C-alpha cells in the first residue's frame, strides 16, 4: 500500500453562516500552520470548473471535508461529483450549536 503523501482539506466554503467562516479559517490553520506542505485546500469553484490540478488533488489524495452546518454542502458536492471523502468534520457538533441555525 502506497503511503499517503498529501491530504486534501475541503471546508464548506459558504458565506451565509458564521460557521462556514470558522470552517474556512480552520482550514487555513491546518494548511499554513499545522501541516504545511502535507495538506492542500480544495477550492470548490476551481474543482467544478475542471481545473486539472484541483481535479487531480481530490482524485489522487484522501480528502477531509469540514461541513459547517447540517446542509452538509461539502459532503453533498462530493456525492454529486462521485467522490468519497476520507473523513468529515461537522463544525456544529464541535461548537455544540444546533445542526442548522440562523
Amino acid at each position, binding site marked *: 500500500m502506497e503511503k499517503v503523501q498529501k491530504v486534501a482539506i475541503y471546508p464548506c466554503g459558504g458565506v*451565509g453562516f458564521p460557521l462556514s467562516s470558522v470552517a474556512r479559517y480552520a482550514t487555513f490553520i491546518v494548511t499554513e500552520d499545522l501541516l504545511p506542505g502535507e495538506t492542500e485546500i480544495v477550492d470548490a*469553484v476551481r474543482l*467544478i470548473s475542471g481545473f486539472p490540478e484541483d481535479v487531480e488533488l481530490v482524485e489522487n489524495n484522501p480528502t477531509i471535508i469540514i461541513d459547517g452546518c447540517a446542509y452538509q454542502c461539502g459532503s*453533498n458536492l462530493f456525492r*454529486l461529483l462521485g467522490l468519497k471523502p476520507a473523513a468529515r468534520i461537522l463544525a456544529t457538533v464541535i461548537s455544540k450549536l444546533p445542526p442548522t441555525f440562523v
Partner: protein
Amino acid sequence: MVERVCIFPCGGIKKTEATVARIAAYMVNEDLLPRRTMILCVPAYLRGVEEDLVMVEDYPTVVIDCHAENCGTNLLYLSGITPAARVFIPDLAEQHGLAYGSQRRELEPEAQQLAEIVARETARAALAMLENPLYNFEKQRIKTDTCLAQRGLPADPFDYVQLAPGLYRPSNMPDFFPEGSDA
C-alpha cells in the same frame, strides 16, 4: 422594478483575492445595501438549497470575479444563468495601484482598501439595477442537468462588455445605468 440584487463573490479560497471578493460582498450586503442585496453561497447553490437557487433565478446577479480564471462567471455559465453584471477585481487593483497582499485569513490594509473599492463598484451597479425604473430584468431558469466537473468552457462565455474599469455586463443583458448617465 427589481426588489433585490444577488451578490456572488467567486467563492474561491486558495487565492488572497478570493478573500477580497468575499469581504467586499459582506460590505455590500451588510453596510452599503443592507436588505436590498443577498449573497449567493456557492456550496449551498451546488447542493440545491432553495433560497440560493431562487436568488439567481428571480433576481439580477452581480458576480465578483477575483481572477482571470473567472470561476464565478464559469459557475453561472455552467448552470445556465447569465449575470446582470460582473465586477473584475484585477482591473480595479490595476486601476488603483493596489495589491492583494499575502494573508488569506484577514486582509492586509492595502487589500482591505481594495475590498472597499470592489464593494463600492459592486454597490454602484446594484443600486442602478434597484433604482432605474427602466431596468428590465427577466427571471431565469437554472439548468437542472448540470454536471459541473470537467466541462469545456469558452474563454468569455457571456461576451462581456466593459462599462467602466472593472465593471462589465454580458452583451445580451439590459443596461442598468440610466440612459445618458456615465457608467
